[in-house]
């Protein structure tokens, strides 16, 4: 440790090195290939969901109920005054809109602070069920794309 490679090399290091490279070349190629395939597979899967990161409310209505286990995202704005929390639970219900269509959604769990900001767009992750309700598992708040100074 701490030594530069060159100093630790024996006089015939060049030959040794070349021998080493040939002996391990196949192993190395296989290792790189496996790594590339694994990362490629992961990237492909991730990209599949990333390229259509979310549907609009109109689109999800057109697509209709999603099958069990299928995860989709829907984006829209919260309609003012539709947010209701079931007494003493973390269950909440609200309506999202994309300007033309609306969708009823329910969410179990914590609601991020910026959820209620009038400039925020909300992305829900979950399932669009048979009874036309979007069951949200995760909420992602898409922040306003402008940064403005607070007036205070």
């Amino acid at each position, binding site marked *: 440790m701490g030594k*530069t*490679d*060159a*100093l630790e*090399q024996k*006089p*015939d*290091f*060049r030959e040794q*090195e070349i021998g080493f*490279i040939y002996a391990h070349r196949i192993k*190395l190629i296989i290792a*790189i290939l496996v*790594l590339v395939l694994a*990362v490629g597979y992961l*990237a492909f899967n*991730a*990209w599949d*969901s*990333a*390229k*259509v*990161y*979310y549907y609009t409310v109109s689109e999800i209505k057109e697509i209709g109920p999603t099958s069990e286990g299928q995860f989709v995202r829907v*984006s829209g704005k919260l309609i003012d005054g539709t947010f209701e929390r079931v007494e003493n639970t973390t269950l909440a219900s609200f309506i999202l809109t994309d300007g033309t269509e609306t969708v009823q959604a329910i969410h179990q769990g*914590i609601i*991020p*602070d*910026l*959820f209620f*900001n009038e*400039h*925020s767009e909300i*992305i829900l992750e979950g399932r669009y069920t048979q009874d036309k309700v979007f069951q949200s598992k*995760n*909420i*992602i*708040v*898409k*922040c*306003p*794309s*402008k*940064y*403005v*100074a*607070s*007036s205070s």
Partner: protein
Amino acid sequence: MAKNISTFEIFWVFSSITLIASLGILFIWVPTDANLGISQKIFYLHVPSAILGMISIAIVAFLSILYLLNTEKKKWDDLAYSFSEVGMVFLTIALISGSLWSKPAWGVWWTWEPKLTLTLVLWFIYVAYLMMRSYMSGSGNEAKFGSVVALIGAIDAPLIYYATELWRSAHPGAVVGPNAESGALDERMFFGLIASFIALSFMFIYFVSNRYFLRSTETRMNFIVRKLN
């Protein structure tokens, strides 16, 4: 060893002064964001380090090509290596600070949206580049394979920048550069971003020059030892 002021020390002094100045500007003079509050200040760390991480891979690709055109000039290769290592450090900071900002702002640590996915891909490209170079070192092919990896990264970098335009994303649209909407960023915030960018750039140059000194000296030393043997 002779005691004289080296280039490193000058960059070190520059980056220290500008960093302290930028922190002062950011936390005293620049206003807090109306919607996101104090957590928006992560922006001044997140955006410059992401930009430096993205520019860096393009420089690596460019230097790799220069080297391949004339393999006598080992210095281009040494410089490319130095940029890749420092670029990865800055991209790592961009990813971590991004995650720490995404939690309070979006409500999640990570989500598979296009900009994030592509940035993670770029991070893996840096990992692949550095790993390949360390495994293949001495084989003579490391620079060639490295340049291919760097070129893929150089294609990825602009995709990251334009991701909000090309695909649906959770990221806000670009606030700086050619794709930015005018008025997307408060004037004082823009100034704060520039100040922070300058400071981090000095740090970046300081790291690269240090790394390059190390790498090129190693190269020269290996050459001497080889000759002696």
